[in-house]
Structures are given as structure tokens and as C-alpha cells.
């Protein structure tokens, strides 16, 4: 098991190294000169050149990459170009904290919700409840966040007036102040994953219910409740738990849209802002951080699956 962990971690590091290269080099090919951008369109050529030297922009590209990587690993993520040389790291960490709160709020909605809906559908297979759940989850998977988000705003903020349509929060806000503002963006971010987990749970539960070992369990004399809790759930939820862990990674992608829609000060909105301003250090830091979260959630999924599944645990 330890060896397995070490190997997974090795894979994550390699993946991150490759992503850092892709991120770095693709930001290099973006049009525009960094020094020119900092100094503005009307700067004197000498000043631009001096800044280029200072920033190391005249070095060969791999040297630039290695220097950047070295600084990044040491925690020096550079200065933001668009916000008066404010250091990138604290800005990103602050936003990451906000995104994390939103992600967790979504997570506690869709994981238990999806499992319960999926189980309900599986146990009522081919009955009305199953059909309703299956059809609506399928339609939800097809709807992007900016559509569901707008519909939610239209109903709960504009029509009913229960919840605020904008979720901009100040850094000093307390939790009771934040909570109502979290509800709508969290639901918006959760819906797609909720539908996905519901379908996954339903499929694997149905499979388990029709398996030979469930027949064995009944013929041992177990009651339907005992069969469900002792034999069905353990096997049926194995794939679901894995999907839940991977979904943390998807959530990051969904957050970019959701945060922009609700003006929520998270990592996704920061990334959007950075791209609009061509703020290279900020883009690099946020994308690499997102890649890291994605990789780690995948690793977490693998580890949970291995831990739950004895076939892998005892290899």
C-alpha cells in the first residue's frame, strides 16, 4: 500500500511538472511583450529594454522557465502586473480560501444528495420516482452553469427575493454574513455533479442488487434492510466515492463560471480577471494551482478506491 501511494505521488509530481511547462510556455506565446505591457504603450524603448533585462526576458527561454520554476517552488510567485506590483501569492491564497468555502458548500450538497437520490431511484427501479430522477438528472447534466445559475437567480432573487443575486463579500465578512450569499452559487456549482453522482449511484446500486452475492445474502436469511446495508451499499458506493473525489477537480472548472456569474471573489474569478488583464504571473500561479488541485483530487480518488477495493489493496 505504501509503495502504491509513493507511485501515485510520483505520477502527480510528473504531471504537475509537465503542466507547469505547458502553462509557462503557452503564456510565453501569448501576444504582447511583458515589459511593454507593464510600462504602457507610450514608454520609451530604452526603458522597455532596461526592464526586459531586469526581468530576465532576454535570457534563453529554458533559463527563464527554470528560474520561474525555482522561484515558484520556493514560494516566490512573482508580482502581479496589473495591480501595482502587489505580490501574487497572498492574493491567490486569499481567493483560494474563498473558493474552498464555496466548493465545500457545493460538495456537502451534491455528494449526500446524489447518493440518496441515486439509491432511491435504484430501489424504486422502473417506478415513477426512478423515472423522474433519471430524466431530470440527465437533463441537468446537459445544462451549463451559466444557464442554471441565471434561472436560479431569476427565481430565488428576482421573483421571490429570498436570496441575494450577487455574492461579492468583503474580506472581513463573518460567517453568518457569508452564508446566505453562498447558497445560490453553491447550488449552481453543485447541480451538474449532483446529477452525475445520482446516475452513477443508481447504476452501480442496480448492478449490485442484481448480483449473485445479493442472492446469496437473501438465501442466508438476511432481511432486505440487512442485505442493503451489509452487502449492497459497500459495493455499490465504491465507484460513487471515487467519482465524488474526482469531482473536486471538475468543480474547479465549474467555479470559474459560477464565480463570475455571482461576482464571488474566488480563484476562478481571479483567473478570469488575470486573463483579461494579461497578468502573466497571476495566470501562471492560478492555473498551476488549479492543475495541482485537479491532480490531487484524482490521486485521492485512486487512493480511496484502492483502499475500498480489496482486489487492488492486496496486489
Amino acid at each position, binding site marked *: 500500500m505504501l509503495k502504491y501511494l509513493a*507511485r501515485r505521488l510520483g505520477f502527480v509530481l510528473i504531471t504537475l511538472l509537465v503542466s507547469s511547462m505547458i502553462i509557462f510556455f503557452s503564456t510565453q506565446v501569448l501576444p504582447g511583450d511583458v515589459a511593454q505591457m507593464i510600462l504602457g504603450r507610450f514608454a520609451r524603448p530604452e526603458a522597455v529594454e532596461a526592464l526586459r533585462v531586469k526581468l530576465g526576458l532576454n535570457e534563453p527561454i529554458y533559463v527563464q522557465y527554470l528560474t520561474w520554476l525555482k522561484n515558484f517552488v520556493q514560494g516566490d510567485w512573482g508580482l502581479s502586473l496589473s495591480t501595482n506590483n502587489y505580490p501574487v501569492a497572498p492574493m491567490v491564497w486569499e481567493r483560494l480560501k474563498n473558493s474552498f468555502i464555496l466548493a465545500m458548500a457545493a460538495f456537502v450538497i451534491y455528494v449526500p444528495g446524489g447518493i440518496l437520490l441515486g439509491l432511491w431511484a435504484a430501489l424504486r427501479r422502473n417506478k415513477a420516482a426512478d423515472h423522474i430522477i433519471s430524466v431530470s438528472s440527465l437533463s441537468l447534466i446537459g445544462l451549463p452553469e451559466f444557464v442554471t445559475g441565471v434561472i436560479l437567480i431569476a427565481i430565488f432573487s428576482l421573483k421571490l427575493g429570498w436570496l441575494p443575486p450577487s455574492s461579492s463579500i468583503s474580506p472581513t465578512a463573518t460567517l453568518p454574513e457569508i452564508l446566505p450569499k453562498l447558497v445560490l452559487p453553491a447550488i449552481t456549482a453543485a447541480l451538474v455533479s449532483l446529477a452525475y453522482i445520482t446516475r452513477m449511484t443508481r447504476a452501480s446500486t442496480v448492478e449490485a442488487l442484481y448480483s449473485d*452475492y445479493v*442472492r*446469496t445474502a437473501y*438465501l*442466508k*436469511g438476511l432481511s432486505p434492510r440487512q442485505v442493503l446495508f*451489509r452487502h449492497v451499499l*459497500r459495493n455499490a458506493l465504491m465507484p460513487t466515492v471515487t467519482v465524488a473525489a474526482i469531482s473536486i477537480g471538475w468543480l474547479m472548472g465549474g467555479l470559474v463560471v459560477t464565480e463570475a456569474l455571482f461576482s464571488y471573489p474566488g480563484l476562478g474569478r481571479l483567473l478570469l480577471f488575470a486573463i483579461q488583464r494579461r497578468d502573466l504571473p497571476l495566470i501562471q500561479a492560478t492555473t498551476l494551482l488549479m492543475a495541482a488541485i485537479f491532480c490531487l483530487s484524482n490521486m485521492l480518488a485512486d487512493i480511496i478506491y484502492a483502499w475500498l477495493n*480489496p482486489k487492488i489493496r492486496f496486489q
Partner: protein
Amino acid sequence: MTRPKILEVENLSISYQTESGLVKAVRRVSLDIRRQESFGLVGESGSGKSTLALGSIRYLAANGRISDGRINFMGEDITDYGLAKMSKLWGRHIGMVYQNPSLALNPSIRIGWQIAETAQIHRGLDKKAAWNEAIMTMAKVSMPEPEYVASLYPHQLSGGMLQRCVITMALLNNPSLLVMDEPTTALDVTTQAVVLDLVSKLKQEYDSAIFYITHDLAVVAQICDTIGVMYAGELLESGPTKTIFRDPRHPYTLSLIGSIPKFEEDHRKRSLSGIKGMIPSLRELPNGCVFSPRCFMADEECRRTAPTLEEIAPDRRSACPRWREMEERRKEMEKTKSYPAPMEQTAALAVDSLAKHYAPISGALRRGAGKALIKALNSVSVSVPKGCTLGIVGESGCGKTTLLRSITGLIEPTEGEVRLDDEPLAPKVTKRPRSILKKIQMVFQNPDASLNPNQTIAKCLERPLKIFTDLGKADRKKKILEILDSVNLPSTYYSRLPGELSGGEMQRVGIARAFAAEPDVILLDEPLSALDVSVQAALVNLLFELQVANNPSYLFISHDLAAVHHISDLIAVMYLGRVVEFGLAEAIFKPPFHPYTEALLSAIPNPDPDAVQTGIRLEGTVPSPSTIIKGCAFRSRCPRVYGPQCADEPPPMRMSAEDDRIFCHIPLEDLARVQTSPFHNASAR
């Protein structure tokens, strides 16, 4: 003498509500099973035997229901019992053993807990006590190292061991009735023998009644006191095993017994009785007697009036009103046709020191070096003369399929060569000219998977004619009709699709396709094992007929020793990628034996209930093909290990007086002194 009845089924009918209407899967079946008695329910696939067995313990699919009749269990009428009431009986008084133990156990719970659970829920034992009880019972079913096995997960054990665990689970609460649904069908023959021994032993130690369901008559003969023969949802005959086998009183039973190849030297290469046609669909049952469309003695009356199961003697019942004629019919049926092969000396196909080694699988970050090669085949040398049949027999994983594929050139052998008419063949199929490809044809195991479902039978048979002959379109059509006729298929099948055919008919098409190119050698890869006994028999006859007519050589691969013995002139016994014994069929099955051949023979259940079996049983499992073996491959399981040379040196070839090649360290004289001949019952006649 009369023991109490444990299970009484009276006039039971079970039907399923399906989308295409009501299916009457079981109709008017009555049977009794008494304490300490084992009742065998025999039937081919689709006969409704599992539905009957599970239905009689009130376990039915959601769309199934008991439409008529009564079930008594230990004096209680359980016909109308629901889930809650049955849960108190299941696992407590009724134990169940399943066909596929690796699916019947929960993959994510330790085996010990799965077994212990039965004692926990029914007897209120706490976890610790139930676990101890599980381990004690595991020891009772001769489980080696029960504590260790209990701590494992199902995927860590072999099929035979898992089946012992399932049996333990069924026996834990000392049930009154043990229902066993094809418990050995998924196992290899040597493992099956061990499990059957265990069942026989348990029969004496526990006083449970056993309800044993199987398609295998030979297994029933060995295990059961009483048998019932089921066909298309009805019981056609029942009675004590011995009398049923010796004196069947229903044409279906008679034909079924006549369809099994007998393990007797003078029965070899003879036609089998077989049964024409196929089991009817439960949706379209024939009028009158259900068996009448396939019966060799049916008349108008049989097709009009449905007979009932009548008592014809004490404890004997038959559903054939003409049961008195059966004795005469049996004698008639015993007159069979013989197909001796012309034993020529020139080899049509020869395989010389063929080996196939695979490199171990290595991932991107895993180093493959240092791991042993997977040796699927090791210097295999066999040959088959023109017009003769070479049978290759061995348990799963012995390399018989790899050998076949190396001969076809589908996989390239690592060493050695294949010669056809003494000409070496290119190792790769793509390098062989068409004239050679034409000479070697193949028949596959699963006819439904090897025929293109979207191609008519004519298209399928036309292909080899197009590729290998220069016949014109009209001639091809004529030839196809001829071929269809030669495999006894009506010409109306010309434009049918494979999906409209039964398994046996599809395999006839598979055989016809192989014969279309008029090859010299036909490779048959388990051609019978997917089919029912009655259908197998007709195909065996067909293979005999075609060989006499066209004189091809057969390479017949099977795990079924009786079938191989029946149709082969020469036999090679394989173990772990090696040939351990090779010679004439009559010599292989006579001493001196290779110890593995001896164990195989001793493991086969004999369809003769009077036969006394020799008790050679193999312990452990076949080693992995990547194990590095210096000496004899069979050493780790050999019951007759001779000395240190078995581990250190490869076994020498010993040639018996009858040209039987045995690869063993034990000298011939010692090998000849076997425990007992597996044929003693045959020679006693």
C-alpha cells in the same frame, strides 16, 4: 427404513410474467426428498431445473409466481410464505450452494465474516463466537489453514477453495435441506472430483437432505440416491439412480444416457444415440407429450394427449405410457455403428518442439527485467496421421489453445516448427500462401460468437469457396447446398441468419464452413463444450461421418476426457504447457500411466453408478506459467513423487511396449503398477 420427508413438492407449477406473455417454466412437478437422501435433478439447459429448485424453496424472481401446487418443508406448508417467513428458514434450515462461487460471494468482505454472518443472524451468536464457529466448520470441510483462509477476500482464492467456503456457509447452521445448483460446473475436472468427494463425505456426516441440480448425468450417478429427469419444465422420469441408469423407462432418459460417451474401450469411436432437434421454447410448447417432437418412438397418440407421470413400480415413475417397450428399445439402441480410422503411418500434421514464451507485462514505471517469462508452451511435439484424430486434453490453462493458435499461425511460436505433409510452415499466418491456408481449417468453441450475426449462412459458407476455389457463382451455390446437406441441415437454411439457429445448428454451420475448403487438417477447439449432451452426441456422429467421407485429420481439443477418449485415435495429455503423455488412445487409458493422466482418469465421474472410483486426488492448484521449473512441471501436485530428480531434472521420455510416450522419472515397471485400473468396471463385464 422410511425416513421423514424434508421437502415435499406436490403438483407444482411456476410461471413467469414476461413482456411477451405468461411463461410456464415448471408444470405439475411432484417430488419428495427425505432426510439423509440426495435427490438429483437432471436436465439440459432450459429444462427449468433451477427454477424448480429455487422455486421449491420459495425463491423466485419478482415476475415469477407459483401458479399451482403445494410445497411442504419439514411438515410446514410454505407455499404462501413471504420473504419475512422464508428468511427464518433460508440459511437456518435451508442451505444453498451455487454454480459460480466467485460471483456468489461478496467481493469486498472477508470470507470468514461472510460465513460467520449466517450463524450471527440465525443463532444470535456474537461476532467472536460466530467467527470461531465458521473456522471450526471450515476445518470440517477439510479446508487447509482455515484461520488464514477466513481472513482472505474471495478474489484471493481459487474456484475449488471458494466452493468449499460456500459449502461451509451452507452447512454452518446444520440445515435440513442443502440445495446445490450445478456446484461443480464451473470447476476443472480434478477440482470437481475433490468437491464431489467432499459432498459424499458430508452426506454421511450431516443428516441433511440434498437437492442436487446438474446437467451432468455422470455426476448424478456418483452423488445421488434418487434422480428426477426434467425436460421442458416437466418431470419425465424419477426413481433410484441405479435402476434408472440400468433400466431407463422413458425415451428421453434412454436417449440421454445413450448420448454420453462411455469410458469403455470397445465403445470408443462408435456412434452415439443423440436426440434430434432441440429443446422447445417454453413459449411454444408442443401439443401432447412435450418430448414427442424429438422422440424416436413417438406416434400420433403421443402428439395428441399429454401423458402424466405414473407410478410404474415402487419408487419409480415415468411419464411415458409406453414404458414397457423401453427394455427392447434399449437393446436396439445399444447396437451402434463403429468408425475405426485407417491408421496410416505418414503424418499429415506434425508439431516439433514447439514453444511459446511471453514477455512479462511491464508498465511505464515498472521494470519488466528480473521477472520470469510466461511460458505458455514448452517443447511440445505431437503428430497426427492422415485421416486420424489427435485428441489434446488438459485442464484450463494447460496451453492447449496456445498450441492450436501456434499451429494456425495466429500467434508466432518462440521455438520449433509446424510441418504439414512434411513441409515446414511459415510461423506467421500472413506469410503462408493460400494453398496452405486452405489445408488447415478451424472450428471454434462458441458458434454464436464465431459466426457473423449479420451474414446469412450462405454468405458464411461461400467465403471459403470464394477464397480457396475458382468455382463460378452457380457452382458455388450448388456446392453450398451440398455442404448443408452433408451436415444434415435443410436447404431452407441457405438464406437464414445465425441468430435464427440453435446452438447445435450453428455449430453444424461452423463445421460446414471448415469443411467447405476441403482441408487436410481440421482444428477443433472445444467444439462441443458449449452444447447440451443430446446435441453433442449428434455432432460427434457428424464428425465421424465427415471424417470417413472426406478423410481429413482432426486435432480435437477438449477438457472433457470422456469425449476425447471417445473420438480420438491418438491422445496427448497436456499439463502446464507441456505434453506429459502422448500415444494411441487405447494405450493412454491403460497402464502404465503418467501420474497426471492417472489422476485425471480417476477424477472423471463415471456415468455408471456401480463403478468404484479410484481415489487419486490432486491437492493445490496448477502453478503459474511464469514459475521457473527445473525438473518436472507436475512435481508440485504429483501424488507419486519419485525422488529428488523430480525437482532437479526434466523428466525423461519413456516408451511403453505400445508406443505410449510418458514423460516421467518413474520407471515404466513402477508406473505400470498403478493403484487400480480406472477401467476395472469395464473389464469386469
